[in-house]
């Protein structure tokens, strides 16, 4: 079987996706990035091939993207996250939806990509200076609140009146949360406030980048229903969640590899 692999070597997770000749997702694997993304990429890729019963010659192209893309030596070429996400979004978009903006909440950065009808990047903005507006922001605060990252979303949806979190900085927000707890605020309200704060920060960036509807949320952050709700409130529009939000970059990379390999999209 002919297929194409995309490897998204993110800061926190390694995502590998394999697409077949008809652009159908054959299989995927997500694993913590570890300390050596070259080794991790190879291991995750090999395991995925095993699981799918494929052998290396079946894979016609391997395209890497993400923070560690240049270090992944099993790939044939690498593309930037921006391009991979833009391509992935067109594929992953719900039936009939015309995605024009992608908001990606990653572990170490967040980005907003505005694309045109052909799926080409029109403009983009990235938050890569600090933890504000990234998955790490949630991770740090989840630890303070003694919940897992997975529990954050459901908790936040149960909030009655979300607290106001003013600090965008993860470290200052942490002390703000601690004082909110000390004042006896309900944990759920605090969690909802955290989501709002993050959504607010990223929405500002999205507006500056020239946000257009419809909006697709990708990245690990999209797995969190509380964050989706917070974005809908903040941007006052419907937000669509990618089918495999964490895989969007990897899928995009695989498709780009396929297209440049002469495959028919």
């Amino acid at each position, binding site marked *: 079987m002919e297929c194409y692999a995309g490897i998204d070597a993110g800061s926190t997770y390694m995502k590998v996706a394999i697409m077949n000749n008809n652009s159908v997702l054959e299989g995927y694997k997500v694993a913590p990035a570890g300390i050596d993304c070259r080794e991790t990429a190879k291991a995750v890729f090999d395991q995925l091939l095993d699981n799918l019963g494929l052998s290396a010659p079946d894979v016609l192209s391997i395209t890497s993207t993400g923070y560690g893309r240049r270090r992944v030596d099993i790939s044939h070429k690498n*593309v*930037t*996250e*921006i*391009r991979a996400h833009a391509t992935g979004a067109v594929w992953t978009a719900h039936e009939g939806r015309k995605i024009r903006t992608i908001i990606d909440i990653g572990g170490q950065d967040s980005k907003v990509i505005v694309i045109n009808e052909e799926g080409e*990047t029109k*403009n983009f903005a*990235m938050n890569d*200076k600090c933890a504000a507006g990234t998955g790490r922001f949630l991770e740090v605060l989840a630890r303070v609140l003694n919940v897992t990252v997975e529990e954050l979303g459901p908790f936040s949806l149960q909030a009655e009146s979300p607290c106001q979190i003013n600090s965008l900085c993860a470290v200052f927000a942490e002390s703000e949360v601690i004082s909110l707890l000390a004042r006896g605020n309900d944990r759920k309200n605090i969690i909802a406030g955290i989501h709002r704060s993050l959504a607010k920060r990223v929405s500002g960036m999205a507006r500056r980048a020239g946000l257009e509807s419809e909006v697709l949320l990708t990245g690990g952050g999209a797995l969190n229903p509380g964050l989706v709700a917070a974005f809908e409130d903040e941007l006052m529009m419907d937000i669509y969640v990618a089918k495999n939000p964490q895989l969007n970059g990897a899928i995009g990379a695989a498709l780009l590899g396929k297209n440049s390999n002469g495959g028919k999209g």
Partner: protein
Amino acid sequence: MNESTNEQIDEILMNKEADQLQKRKARFARGLVRSAETTLAELEENPDLPESMHYFINIMREVFVKDRAHRLLLPSQNQSANNRKIIGTYCLMVPEELIYAAGATPVRLCGGNYEASLAGDELVPRDTCPVVKASIGFTSLNLMSLYQMCDAVIVPTTCDAKRKMGEELSKFTEVWMLEVPHIKDSEGSRRQWLQQLYALKNNIEKFTGKSFIRRKIRRKALDASIKMIGSAQYQARRLYDIRKSSAAIISGRDAMFAINAYSYDTAFKWTKAMTRLNDELEVRCHKGQFICSEHTPRILIAGSPPIFPNWKIPSLIEEMGAVIVADESCMGNRYLYDPIGLTEKSVTDMMVGIAARYIMPCVCPSFAPNEDRLFRLLQMAEEFSIDGIIYHVLKGCVIYDFELIRVEKIMKGKNIPVLRIETDYSPEDIEQLRTRIEAFVEMLGIRKER
């Protein structure tokens, strides 16, 4: 007995302090040499480097690595050369013609060094731009002969940071403030500016004279210095035109570097070197020796000036596969772009001509309104077939950032993408910037293919 012991202790303490200071200076000096040499080595690695670029690289190496600026600016060892005054300048509003005409030598001091900006960091508010931090750092450390050899410095009142910098610099050196109007279109401000230049001329005449006797700037000398800078401008414009070719002949890194070197060289020698570079580039053009293809995305770098050795952004852009064909930096194209228009050659007419040249066509964002700059950018975008603009904002440079609003709007109308990069001289954000610039260049490449 007791007293003498105390004195001894004081002396030991003082020596210790001086020792600490020396050590600290030595550390800065090492860092400074290293960062300058890194940038120079990167430029020299380029296989397409034009032969004539070595002259400019050598200038920077003499000034920043070998610390021998005096060799460039005071070349001859005769008596008159030893009395030659060196006048430091900040910003491009200082008329170098007046300095040359008085037999002095101007040197542009705006700092681009990371280590110097760290030294300056302790002396100015945190949100000050790195240009001012580095300039103050260089001056306060008293490390480099480039800064030590200036007998006086002229600081035009352009942006807030530069204005206050003048005040701070006066702790270390003789500073002459030069009041630049912020509104060019009013009759009053033009008259005031002319008066300022007459006052400056007076100052320079007194300064270069002997024992309080003014050494008047003669008509002939002024005419000659206008001509000398005019020919430097002619060569700068030749380079500007060469960079318009559909496939680039010189990288933006090199071109901007060659212009930047003008700051530390005498106009006469620089012009000769620039003529050689332009001749070489024209030959390359005839031979079809291009550094990249016609499909390479063409970038205009706008906003705050990259100043040597801070070649961070120009290097990243070109490493990521684009070519910088134009810049509007006050250390680059804008520095030597506008010539002086003269009708007669009386001193009065020349003074009016100089006054007009230094503010009327100048598009520094310290002017308001500054519609001229938008017009200039549109003109450049067209002349150089620009695919995208990288808008460089040095942290703390509010006025360039302000004008981005208008630049973005006007470029949207022309369908030219603009990427804002806010950074300073520190290397810590290079990897993040690389991702962003790479994605931008990739996007421009795809747009261009279509």
